[in-house]
């Protein structure tokens, strides 16, 4: 029934849109939508002088983390944020342990994660562990769901997470000190100092986080499911960030930033190995990211930018060391007049891995070129079109075109309704591990996808009430999905011929402002239907079934009530049933609820925020990945002093 309904809606929208667009007289740019303080906002145009590809994301959905939401979770990781604030599924192996995103059912390597345009993925693995990304350092987060290789390059088949840091240009010394203490000996300490004289700004930040993670769980591999306490699950991480921004006389901007992250963590054992010390292991990671960028003056119709970035990743697990250095050079230019925005750029990337297990010379060069345009042929319509092409050592790179539209259907007083749609071809080159781990796997093809989506955004204001909502229907056909399979005594990567994903994403935010009181309710829901359509062998029983570890239903709801300087907040997350690789092995759904209060104090013109929260208040015993215990009820106290 779903399939039929979905298809009908999709067809109606696709057929109706050309007529609606050409005949519409409603003229409204999505950038002019009232934004309020909502977590979910529509696309905002790029800022001239610092060309951002986000402005060309026409027809797709970008959810920007609000300043408040980011501030309240500064002492957490990107994994925590995605899990608590969006309906995107996170596959995690314990608190503070490996954590991988799955947007629209795709794998974590299908989501690009970048900071100011620099990939945060480890080039050898080709994916990002979101538990390794401390939110503390970042000022902005855009969650782009859907294929976006044109905008963000290789790997953006499922979506993209774009983190950024920016100068504030507040003269003098500003900053914050953040402290967190919580259950299972969780500690976080962070400090940031900014100095600006109006033309020069420096930002220095450090953090340290640790936890014992000795929480209790029910061992579902022992008779009677006894209660046990987790062993070997501690972590101790620290990092530092330094940024310098310099405005030149012509208002051009030079920026330099460097971030160093150091992680040490014991690898949480599965519940069946919790009492087997001989199996305990740990892993150490060091990640360095650095870039120097120039942005031309933000004046006139033409601007350009250039950057050079260096990164180094090092991981030690037992006797294995996986390391890689990468240099990336980017040059981009942007043209703008009233209704037309054009951007083009080229990039070169050079990666040199140092991995004992690699067979063959694995040095890699990547070159990409892209061009894209955003145009408003009539006031109610915004169109985008672009293409990215690339060349990568030893791999074919499919062309990555993309087209999208935004259509303003209603712009009447306090009601706004927009339709949007996009179609794109996206791709991901096999990671270095895919190509060289234990052999030269030159037979591997690049993964590629065809993404189509349509959606609608609606906003209304009725007196004190503001409501925004959105719905997106999508379909994505992924060809040559890479998985590792056994081949005799070893495992080798193979291309799965075709995996199809389709589904619905929806969300709504209701916001009431009453004098000094405000109420905010946000709900996000995802329905994900992802199946292998063509497998490697005809009889594969999983063909036509939901992929492993992909819940069909995922829902997040948050409610905040604020009165003057006091705030009560609660969140509920529901993760639906999913299977392991065994189609008969069904993991139960679970719902986690958190509550907390926050109060702001004024201290000599500065602000002190204190928050107390209870996590998993109903003490649900659950496993996200089978046999990996997740924490029960716990508490958390956060103090944040802004000066």
């Amino acid at each position: 029934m779903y399939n039929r309904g979905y298809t009908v809606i999709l067809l109606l929208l696709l057929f109706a849109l050309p007529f609606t667009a050409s005949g519409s007289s409603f003229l409204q740019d999505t950038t002019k939508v009232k934004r309020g303080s909502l977590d979910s906002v529509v696309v905002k145009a790029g800022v001239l002088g610092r060309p951002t590809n986000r402005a060309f994301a026409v027809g797709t959905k970008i959810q920007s983390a609000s300043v408040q939401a980011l501030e309240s979770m500064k002492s957490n990781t990107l994994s925590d944020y995605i899990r608590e604030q969006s309906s995107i599924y996170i596959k995690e192996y314990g608190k503070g342990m490996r954590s991988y995103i799955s947007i629209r059912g795709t794998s974590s390597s299908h989501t690009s994660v970048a900071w100011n345009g620099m990939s945060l993925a480890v080039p050898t693995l080709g994916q990002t562990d979101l538990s390794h990304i401390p939110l503390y350092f970042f000022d902005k987060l855009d969650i782009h769901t859907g294929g976006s290789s044109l905008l963000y390059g290789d790997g953006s088949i499922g979506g993209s997470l774009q983190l950024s840091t920016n100068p504030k240009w507040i003269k003098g010394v500003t900053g914050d000190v953040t402290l967190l203490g919580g259950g299972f000996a969780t500690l976080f300490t962070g400090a940031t100092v900014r100095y600006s004289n109006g033309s020069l700004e420096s930002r220095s930040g450090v953090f340290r986080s640790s936890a014992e993670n000795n929480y209790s769980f029910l061992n579902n591999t022992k008779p009677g499911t006894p209660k046990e306490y987790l062993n070997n699950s501690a972590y101790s991480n620290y990092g530092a960030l330094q940024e310098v921004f310099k405005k030149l006389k012509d208002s051009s901007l030079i920026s330099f930033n460097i971030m160093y992250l150091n992680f040490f963590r014991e690898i949480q054992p599965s519940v069946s190995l919790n009492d087997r010390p001989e199996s305990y292991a740990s892993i150490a990671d060091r990640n360095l990211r650095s870039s120097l960028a120039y942005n031309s003056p933000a004046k006139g119709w033409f601007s350009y930018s250039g950057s050079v970035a260096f990164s180094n990743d090092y991981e030690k697990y037992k006797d294995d060391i996986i390391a890689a250095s990468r240099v990336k050079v980017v040059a981009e230019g942007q043209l703008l007049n009233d209704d037309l925005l054009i951007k083009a750029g080229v990039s070169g990337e050079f990666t040199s891995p140092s991995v004992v297990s690699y067979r063959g010379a694995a040095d890699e060069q990547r070159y990409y070129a892209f061009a894209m345009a955003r145009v408003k042929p009539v006031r109610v319509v915004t169109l985008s079109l672009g293409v990215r092409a690339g060349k990568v050592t030893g791999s074919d790179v499919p062309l990555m075109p993309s087209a999208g539209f935004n259509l303003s259907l209603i712009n009447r007083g306090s009601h706004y309704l927009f339709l949007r749609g996009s179609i794109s071809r996206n791709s991901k080159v096999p990671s270095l591990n895919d190509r060289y781990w234990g052999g030269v796997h030159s037979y591997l093809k690049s993964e590629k996808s065809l993404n189509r989506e349509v959606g609608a955004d609606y906003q209304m204001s009725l007196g004190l009430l503001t409501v925004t909502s959105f719905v997106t229907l999508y379909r994505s056909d992924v060809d040559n999905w890479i998985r590792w399979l056994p081949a005799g005594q070893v495992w080798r990567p193979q291309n799965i011929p075709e995996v199809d994903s389709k589904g619905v994403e929806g969300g709504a935010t209701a916001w009431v402002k009453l004098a000094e009181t405000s109420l905010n309710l946000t709900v996000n829901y995802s329905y994900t239907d992802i199946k292998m359509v063509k497998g490697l062998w005809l009889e594969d029983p999983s063909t036509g079934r939901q992929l492993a570890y992909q819940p069909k239903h995922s829902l997040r709801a948050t409610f905040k009530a604020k009165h003057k300087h006091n705030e009560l907040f609660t969140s509920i997350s529901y993760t639906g049933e999913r299977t392991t690789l065994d189609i008969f092995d069904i993991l139960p759904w679970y719902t986690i609820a958190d509550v907390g209060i926050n109060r702001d104090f004024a201290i000599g013109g500065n602000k002190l925020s204190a928050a107390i929260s209870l996590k998993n208040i109903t003490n649900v015993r659950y496993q996200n990945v089978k046999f990996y215990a997740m924490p029960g009820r716990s508490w958390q106290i956060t103090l944040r002093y802004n000066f």
Partner: protein
Amino acid sequence: MRNLLWVVAFAIVAVSCSKNEVILKPVDLDGKVIVINQGNFTEHSASISIYDEQRNDIQNRVFESANGVSIGATIISGVVSPSKHAYLVCNNPDKIEIIDSRTAKQASEPMTQGLASPRAVAISGNRIYVSNWDYSYVVTPSGFWEFNKSYVAVYDLSTKALIKKVLVGTDAEGLLIVGSKLFVAVKEGVRVLDLTGDNLNSTALIRAAGVTGGAKNLVSDKNGKVWASFPDKGLVQIDPVTQTAVKSVEVPVDFMDGYIVSDGNKVYTYNTVFNASYMPIEAGIYAVDVATGGVNKIFSGTYFYGVGVSPKTGNIITAEVSFTSNSVMKIVGTDGQLKGSATAGIGTCRYLFF
């Protein structure tokens, strides 16, 4: 079936004549099969299914259904004792789960003492013998690990208490008890241990001339001869009395664990061929006539990971596997014709008939 019972009878006589009076009893057959789905090592995703040969139906994940908990490991191999307790050799974590074959309920606490990457189990009289790789290894020039301190652990069947460990060589795999001798497949060949008085003294290391590589698994035929799989070559027939190799037969054997089975008349092997892109392209089940040494390919597929032969029906069972998905079990008649199929768990590898 008659031939297999003959083999069992031979074993009874042989063991009965041994000095320590161990008795091997045959397993009464209910016409059911415990299907071992090995699972993926890092995901602890082993499961067991029970296949009913008469009704041609399968029940999956019976351990979870019966006990309310998961095995939480991989299952490498297993054996059914005359009391119809199945001993399932698990890795990661290393343990031996003991279940009632009929109900799949845990019959006792899992055995854990003295295990280090256990591989195979054999039961004789009041003793349990378990081959172990141990955790020590050396890395070969080609990058593979070799476990050069492999041992056999001996347990009391009644108390499950560890009695002793005996070093046997490198990469210990299959076990076979013939009379008072324990045959152990190791990289160096076939090690023979004297079971008398729990001494487990090594009495021979058997290796056929011109056969390279290690021994992997062992079975006996209706004549009481021992057959050892050497994946580099095929099969080697051993006289258990003289403890010498009698002959060798070239036949494809799986390189992973070289698992073989016998119905007395024939020894069955399986093998999968991979192409240059490491894709499985052809798998086969081969029958070796124990009298003539003739080889006959009796069934083909894409990727096999184990083989079994029913002592009740004579049917051969194998499965198409992928490890990223469920296996499809194949029931093949003695004529090589497919008689049925059923979806099992991940990495279906062994079939324990009871």
